[in-house]
């Protein structure tokens, strides 16, 4: 494991010497990697760093507010309201890779504008060691703002956590007092709830996915999963109050893992599963059925798309 204090001192010094007196921008997703990269860069260059968080409308319940609160100490934080633009771009798109592509393009457009406005010379990214190797595997295309340097001619790209693994980044986050990012926020994919909705992303499915994810996170908290969520996977028949409904099928997933590379489906108590089922179907009129995903990784991935 990395020596956390030594790492923070060295990484801060390195960022300082690389960026010097110039300006930098970082895309903040609220995940632990970009949060740590932003906190390190902020220590190094203060308000010459512009952290940009884009609300794509594909975020979890309360996510944007939580980000504002966590990063309240950064005066230069920019929160971009881009829900309509992302939902428009996703209209009619059903192929998983095309969805990721549409979202990636959307991010680049948002950051291009913000980077120009902030007059940023450098791009800071929360790339971690596995990202550098994994992108070759073609399992799923990795979402980040990887295409941004192609539209903006940055003087340099700074990746302060490039040699760390996820659990090491978490250790650094704790040392940086980003405890809430680590303890209260599970890993969340770049494309957000879009990959927890099979097929086209619509407002209706987004609402179901957002509420169901929130319920799952609340109900499984005591079981300390590495990641837990709900996905909207299709439609099926149900009967509610003597009425037939053709409603959404929600899959619940809760896994334990060290690094996301392998994962075990959690052996949740029946009572917990039943409470989840009852809340998701009870609080959402158009959900007909809830299933629990018992597949490990491999052979399944953690997220659905």
């Amino acid at each position, binding site marked *: *494991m990395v020596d956390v204090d030594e790492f923070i001192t060295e990484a801060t010094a390195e960022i300082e010497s690389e960026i010097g007196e110039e300006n930098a921008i970082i895309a903040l997703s609220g995940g632990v990697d970009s949060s740590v990269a932003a906190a390190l860069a902020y220590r190094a260059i203060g308000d010459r760093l512009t952290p940009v968080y884009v609300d794509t409308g594909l975020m979890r319940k309360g996510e944007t507010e939580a980000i504002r609160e966590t990063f309240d100490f950064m005066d230069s934080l920019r929160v971009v309201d881009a829900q309509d633009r992302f939902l428009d771009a996703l209209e009619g798109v059903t192929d998983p890779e095309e969805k990721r592509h549409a979202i990636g393009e959307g991010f680049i457009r948002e950051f291009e504008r913000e980077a120009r406005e902030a007059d940023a010379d450098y791009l800071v990214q929360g790339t971690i*060691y*596995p990202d*550098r*190797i*994994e992108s*070759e*595997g073609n*399992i799923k295309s990795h979402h980040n703002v990887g295409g941004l340097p192609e539209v903006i001619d940055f003087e340099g790209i700074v990746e302060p956590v490039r040699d760390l*693994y996820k659990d090491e980044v978490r250790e650094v986050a704790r040392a940086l007092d980003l405890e809430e990012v680590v303890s209260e926020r599970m890993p969340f994919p770049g494309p957000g709830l879009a990959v927890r909705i099979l097929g086209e992303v619509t407002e209706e499915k987004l609402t179901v996915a957002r509420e169901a994810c929130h319920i799952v996170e609340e109900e499984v908290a005591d079981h300390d999963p590495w990641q837990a969520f709900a996905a909207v996977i299709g439609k099926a028949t149900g009967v509610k109050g003597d009425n037939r409904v053709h409603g959404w099928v929600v899959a619940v997933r809760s896994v334990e*893992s*060290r*690094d996301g*590379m*392998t*994962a*075990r489906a959690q052996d949740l108590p029946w009572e917990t599963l039943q409470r989840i089922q009852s809340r998701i179907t009870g609080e959402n009129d158009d959900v007909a059925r809830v299933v629990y995903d018992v597949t*490990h*990784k*491999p*052979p399944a991935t953690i997220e659905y798309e």
Partner: protein
Amino acid sequence: MTRILVVDNHGQFTHLERRALRDAGVDTEIVDNDTPPGDLDADGLVLSGGPDMDRIGRCGEYLDLDVPILGICLGMQIMATELDGSVGSGEYGGYADVDVRIVDEGDPLIGSLAPETRVWASHADEVTALPTGFTHTATSDVCEIEAMSAPDRDLYGVQWHPEVAHTAEGDEVFANFIARCE
């Protein structure tokens, strides 16, 4: 310091092999599998897993380098194919939890895990015939040849993934391999 290189066959877990070695305190790096054999300055090699036998680069040539080699998943299958063993598709894909029985307690790589160990696997193909000079060292219900060794040449193969967090005694496999490289 002992130096062990990880040859990347485009596997998802390649970086975890580097991590396991780094955490065990050896000098380690990931190298491309088309690196000329003469440029590999190491006391041992790990041949990583990967998706495709057509993308194994120059791994076959590395088997002649006269350093200990640990083949993991596809890496083990490369040993079988490049030497005179064989590889075929298994009847039952090995994914996630597998209980492996050690059949050679004297094996330098995995003998210390006897009698049984819980591993994490991810493979459709498997070694179907051992190369000459190799001993069958482990088996399971889903895969006959889970591991094989040729200790006199210091060539070792495991079909499962000792580098992933869900494999119970993965660190011990790496420690045993490092001992052969020192």
